[in-house]
């Protein structure tokens, strides 16, 4: 017995509602996966960037260390040269003072400057002039002073004056001279 004259439509699981639902579900899943992939990609990029930064930092650290070593070396060169220049200037003043110390009436034939002493050879008209005009100032500078006299032509006397400083006093004087020059 037939109730209808048309053929029954074949029912499908993919109805328009179901298709809409699948489209919605697919979009949701794609968005979720997209976000996840984006985060994974960014993480990889961050790790890569951190690696690059670490490498740059290492290069910079090495560079800074090298430059600091160069700076320290130049400062050392500067300090050493300053010390030497001061020594030369102190030496010049010392020699100048020595020759200024010798009176007109006494003639030096030789002057030997040692690190902590001075040996003078020369001729003097007599012992008194030597003692008052040369030996007295030498005694005020040096701690040990020895003088020897030998007769020379015309009644003059040849002398050898040997003068030394105590080691401690000499060290102090050296420091004082250097400080004064630095100022």
């Amino acid at each position, binding site marked *: 017995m037939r109730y209808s004259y048309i053929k029954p439509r074949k029912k499908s*699981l993919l*109805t328009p*509602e*179901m298709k809409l*639902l699948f489209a919605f*579900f697919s979009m*949701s*899943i794609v968005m*979720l996966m997209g*976000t*996840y992939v984006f*985060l*994974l990609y*960014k*993480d990889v990029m*961050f*790790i890569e*960037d*951190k690696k690059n*930064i*670490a490498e*740059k*930092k290492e290069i*910079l*650290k090495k*560079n*800074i260390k090298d*430059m*600091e*070593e*160069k*700076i320290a*070396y*130049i*400062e*050392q*060169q*500067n*300090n*050493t*040269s300053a010390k*030497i*220049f001061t*020594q*030369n*200037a102190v*030496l*010049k003043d010392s*020699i*100048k003072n020595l*020759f200024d110390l010798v009176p007109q009436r006494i003639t*030096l*034939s*030789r*002057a*030997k*400057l*040692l*690190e902590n002493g001075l040996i003078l050879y020369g001729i003097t008209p007599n012992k008194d002039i030597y003692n008052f005009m040369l030996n007295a100032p030498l005694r005020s500078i040096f701690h040990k002073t020895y003088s020897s006299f030998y007769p020379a032509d015309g009644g003059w006397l040849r002398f050898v004056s040997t003068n030394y400083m105590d080691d401690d006093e000499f060290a102090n004087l050296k420091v004082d001279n250097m400080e004064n020059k630095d100022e």
Partner: protein
Amino acid sequence: MSSISRQSIYILLLSTILLTFVLLFSFNALIPEGKEYRLQRVQLSKEYKDLKRYQEYDAQVYDELKKLQADHRHIITAFDTPFEKQRFVKKYKDVFKTLEITSLDNNSTEDGFSVYNVKTSSKISTPTTFYKFLDEINKSDWIVAVNFPIDFQRDGDMITSTFQMKVYSNSKDSNRSK
């Protein structure tokens, strides 16, 4: 029971599956990855700040080095210049009447620098010449320290001066300023 259609059951079932997937995916993958992303971003930002600080300090040290090199060019060059006796004699022959330089064997190291010892014999007319030499030696092409003993001896109208000099230069194993 007969009021719920088969289609509604499918929709309900699919929705439940999707919801379960979304929840599981979010809590197990997306949220931990998001936290990791935030953490990495903060760390990277710190690293960038740190790098910038290093770059600034590097530039500062570089400026300081260049300034020092410019200010002390004469000293740096003098320490780098090897001592040549002929050149020294040529340079200072105008100061002295005669000048002779002899190398001494007792080379040493002082303050990390090589020290080359030489003995100098010269003839001068007045002590003033020697003062002039001491002034000029500080501006020479080498770092030279005039050293004791210094001997001045009258020789007719001239004075024979004999003294030692220490010439300082960069030691071979520490030529870092080059």
